[in-house]
């Protein structure tokens, strides 16, 4: 008797396995294979990205999908490891027959995946990784990025510093950033942009703690000795939190202006430091929960909060933007199967995003496949509307998208190398 039951279960399972693909094949779907990390330090961004992407997919499918297709989104934890990501991407392409590769937080994983995307002619939508290389030196036609890169953030930072010099003259500058590609890129790009905008400065210190270093005390005391007017920070996430917490009682932020234009203003930094976050730090991020003050942005943030019970980091908006871009491209082409036509559709595409202020629409630069967006740089002010954060950014300075793009010579000199 028991034997029969077991046999029955096995049969049903086998049948289900055979039938499931058929059932799916009945419906027309756009398959999006995503590779966000769900573990480790970057797991927070992965989780936010997946939640926001699912939110966008639900919104679009609720309206009946695009061009008769429903969106189907799957995420596999890439563990932020390039080798694993490559294998998963291969599976997505060969087995699951996805139409788009999607995601990733780490630039290293992004670089490995853009190689896969190039060889298999499969569009890869980059949402969070920041390395400028992907749209400059390592540019390939099937890669698109829907969030700002470090060059754009650093250009905004440089413009901010240029304006600051007119009201509050400064001369010396120091840098602290994680000792890997992301940290070094930011510093080089900042210096390049300061030169480009004709800002005079003197470097008094450069500091390279290792990524995920738990203790910054010796760096802090040494920075204080250098007495820089401006301290640029390229730290992100938990590292930024630890640095700020450790530096505050040393009085560092009273002696120098702290400026972190790429990831310093990301929401998790504010939620993790609460009331300990000093006022008057100059920070920015690729999306802000309280800027622009438009209905679209408010709706996006509240919807995310309702879905997850927390406020989004900027990673979330990147993923959200990526799904919107895919939907719009499929709508235009009429099907998700012709990668080359989709590339054409994405090039120059205008996408209305939560982070767009009144009168501006983000668009994808056809030459580099990099999204072009306005960047707002703010100063920490008291604001408890987004708990657990007690500080948010305010006193915004807005930088026009076109001013932040790398100039032609820069791209050409990089591509030649």
């Amino acid at each position, binding site marked *: 008797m028991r034997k029969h039951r077991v046999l029955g279960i096995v049969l049903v399972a086998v049948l289900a396995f055979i039938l499931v693909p058929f059932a799916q094949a009945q419906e027309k779907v756009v398959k999006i294979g995503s590779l966000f990390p769900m573990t480790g330090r970057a797991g927070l961004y992965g989780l936010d990205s997946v939640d926001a992407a699912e939110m966008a997919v639900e919104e679009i499918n609720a309206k009946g999908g695009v061009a008769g297709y429903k969106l189907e989104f799957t995420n596999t934890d890439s563990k932020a490891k390039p080798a694993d990501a490559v294998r998963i991407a291969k599976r997505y392409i060969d087995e699951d027959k996805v139409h788009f590769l999607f995601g990733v937080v780490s*630039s290293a994983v992004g670089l490995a995946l853009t190689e896969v995307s190039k060889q298999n002619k499969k569009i890869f939508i980059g949402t969070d990784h920041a390395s400028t290389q992907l749209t400059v030196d390592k540019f390939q036609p099937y890669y698109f990025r829907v969030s700002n890169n470090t060059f754009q953030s650093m250009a905004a930072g440089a413009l901010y510093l240029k304006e600051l010099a007119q009201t509050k003259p400064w001369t010396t500058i120091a840098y602290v950033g994680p000792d890997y590609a992301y940290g070094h890129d930011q510093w080089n790009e900042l210096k390049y942009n300061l030169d480009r905008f004709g800002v005079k400065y003197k470097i008094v210190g450069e500091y390279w703690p290792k990524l995920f270093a738990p203790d910054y005390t010796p760096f802090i005391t040494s920075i204080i000795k250098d007495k820089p007017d401006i301290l640029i920070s390229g730290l992100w996430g938990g590292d930024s939190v630890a640095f700020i917490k450790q530096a505050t009682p040393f009085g560092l932020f009273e002696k120098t202006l702290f400026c972190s234009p790429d990831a310093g203003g990301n929401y998790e930094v504010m939620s993790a430091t609460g009331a300990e976050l000093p006022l008057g730090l100059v920070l920015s991020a690729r999306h802000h929960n309280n800027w622009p003050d438009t209905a679209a942005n408010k709706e996006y943030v509240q919807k995310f909060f309702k879905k997850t019970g927390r406020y989004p980091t900027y990673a979330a908006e990147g993923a959200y933007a990526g799904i919107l871009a895919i939907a719009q491209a499929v709508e235009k082409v009429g099907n998700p199967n012709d990668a080359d036509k989709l590339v054409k559709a994405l090039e120059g595409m205008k996408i209305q995003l939560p982070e767009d202020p009144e009168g501006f629409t983000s668009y994808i630069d056809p030459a580099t496949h990099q999204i072009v967006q306005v960047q707002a740089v703010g100063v920490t002010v008291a604001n408890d509307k987004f708990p657990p954060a007690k500080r948010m950014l305010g006193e915004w300075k807005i930088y026009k998208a076109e001013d932040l793009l790398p100039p032609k010579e820069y791209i050409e000199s990089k591509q030649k190398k």
Partner: protein
Amino acid sequence: MEIRNNYKEIVFWAILFVIFGSLPIIGSSSYHLMLASHILLWGLFAVAFNMLWGVTGMLSFGQALYFGLGGYGVGLMVRHVGSDWFVPGIGLGLIAAAILSFAIGLLIIRVSGVFFTVLTLAFGQLVWQITFRWYEFTGGDDGIQGIIPPGILSNKLFYYYATLLIVIASIWLLRRISLSPLGVLLRCVRQNPNRVSFIGQSVRYSQLRIYIVSSVFSALAGGLMAGVDNSIHTDMLYWTTSGEVILMSVLGGIGQFFGPFIGTAVFIVIQEFVGAKTEYWPLIIGLIMMTMVLLLPRGLVGEFEALKTRLQSRMVADRG
């Protein structure tokens, strides 16, 4: 004893040839080929690693160093000289691994037990950190992409069969070494180092030799891996890579020569399957690991053997 061993070996080689050799013929996708290549290369890495632990009793937590060195030999050649230098790059990795393992080996075989393990870990992390931050030369955390083997090797099918043949030849060679007088001596070292030195054999010299052998074959696996993934990354050198290869070996059984290879296949398939279904894969891998260590320490192959022996002896008893 000899005959049974032969029979087991024949089964292993037959499986290796038939399954991996026929994969492309039965119409597998390039994803399956990649998965199979990963099993073959990690399998070689695990067998080479087990030459140290299973055969000699020296647990290295730093073999990722040589695995990564193999990969970076290829990667650096391709990055700095050109993609035609893929094969010389593999050679470079092997030579570098031989030299470095000789130098490090001299330093670390002075201590044994957990001390040895920690030292291997320490050296592995040192090389990882240097690679990670020496951005101009190694590409740092960005890794190196676009490693496409030149000429006929760029054909995926050809590359796959080349990998298969090299892996089989290497494992066969390692098998010969483990059965050679050196291998026998090392097993004695594992059981009683003092006695070996009493009979006039240099323990350290033998250990150094096997450390170099293991490292060179790890580098070979790493070098070939670069051509499968078309990119390499500092993760190859990180301690978690060393940890994974230990885990694969334990899963298959460290007391068995072919155990680590079987363990690798099982591990990669589980990881692929579990990883696709849940983000809580570390929990599941952790639980599997605990089960293996606590309940099945002989590994899948070892436990299977033990079960067979028990059944056979019961059958004999029944007949008697």
